[in-house]
């Protein structure tokens, strides 16, 4: 595992992401914008169920958020892969990274389910989905504070 990560760190894209002043921060901005669209859309799907009443709360029109959320997901994944390329050991040796994905995948599935107008216990599902969206973002923030190593050089010497 560590050997593979050490090899990854020496590839050209990985070195570029670490050494170029602009590349890493451009990827961070792209990741923030992508996540804003994905999670913003997901939060809105939850808030529709939790907050809105009457005609405005009809589920069907809100399917229009899905393409926007997909676009956000693509941007977040592409920029996320660029960030991962720079510091593969930092993310892939941290279990919080797995928690982030578990939260976001579960949130996506629950939020999609909310678009079926007849979803049972919709409010409870929406509250859980909202917690999972925010949990995914929180786990992403915590990556900065919980990593075991920034690069494999710290364990390989």
């Amino acid at each position, binding site marked *: 595992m560590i050997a593979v990560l050490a090899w990854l760190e020496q590839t050209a894209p990985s070195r570029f992401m670490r050494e170029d002043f602009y590349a890493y921060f451009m990827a961070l901005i792209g990741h923030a914008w992508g996540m804003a669209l994905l999670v913003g859309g997901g939060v*809105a799907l939850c808030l529709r169920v939790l907050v809105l009443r009457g005609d405005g709360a009809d589920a069907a029109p809100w399917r229009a958020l899905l393409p926007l959320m997909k676009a956000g997901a693509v941007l977040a994944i592409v920029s996320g892969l660029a960030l991962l390329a720079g510091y593969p050991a930092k993310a892939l040796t941290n279990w919080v990274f797995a928690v982030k994905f578990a939260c976001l995948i579960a949130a996506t599935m629950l939020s999609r389910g909310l678009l079926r107008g007849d979803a049972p216990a919709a409010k409870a599902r929406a509250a859980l989905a909202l917690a999972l969206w925010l949990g995914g973002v929180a786990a992403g923030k915590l990556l900065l504070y919980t990593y075991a190593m920034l690069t494999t050089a710290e364990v390989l010497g």
Partner: protein
Amino acid sequence: MSGGAYPVDRVLDPVAIVDWAIDTGLYDIAYSAWGWPLAEIVHFSGLCLLAGSVLLFDLRALGLLRPIPLASLHRLVLLGVLGFALNLASGTLFVASAPDQYLYNPAFQVKLALMALAGANMLAFYALTKGGRRLTDAAGIVRTRVRACALLSLVCWTGVIAAGRVITAFRPPGWFWCAWCG
């Protein structure tokens, strides 16, 4: 900040700000074991609420997400205001606990300028739409003034996110930007 290589700030006294943070207990919260990370989580949760309301309202006013009623998204904007309150509280904690790292940081200055513009834009939006009650014309078309405000809001908030994200890239003293210092 006094004496030596850096200009002296007689307008925004960072030492006085930190003293205030210490007196109010904010400083201890910020530098407790999980204080800073938790405040960041609050900050990003607020941002998620803003993105899930204001950002989507802007996109809808500009012609995307057409099936969703504009008025429904406008109702969610109140939660965006709650999100902004979370951002303001956590943001105040950051700035008060390390003022020199923000006040003289060009990314933070750009972020603050964009937030001021977004705030003025919001006031204009509510003034121009009778408090948000007149979003569409008689034919149900989104009014031009609503679209103009939405476009400016979208530019401001995407800019706020971008500038906020790169604050860490412009840490003073390397990027000591103080136009008002002596």
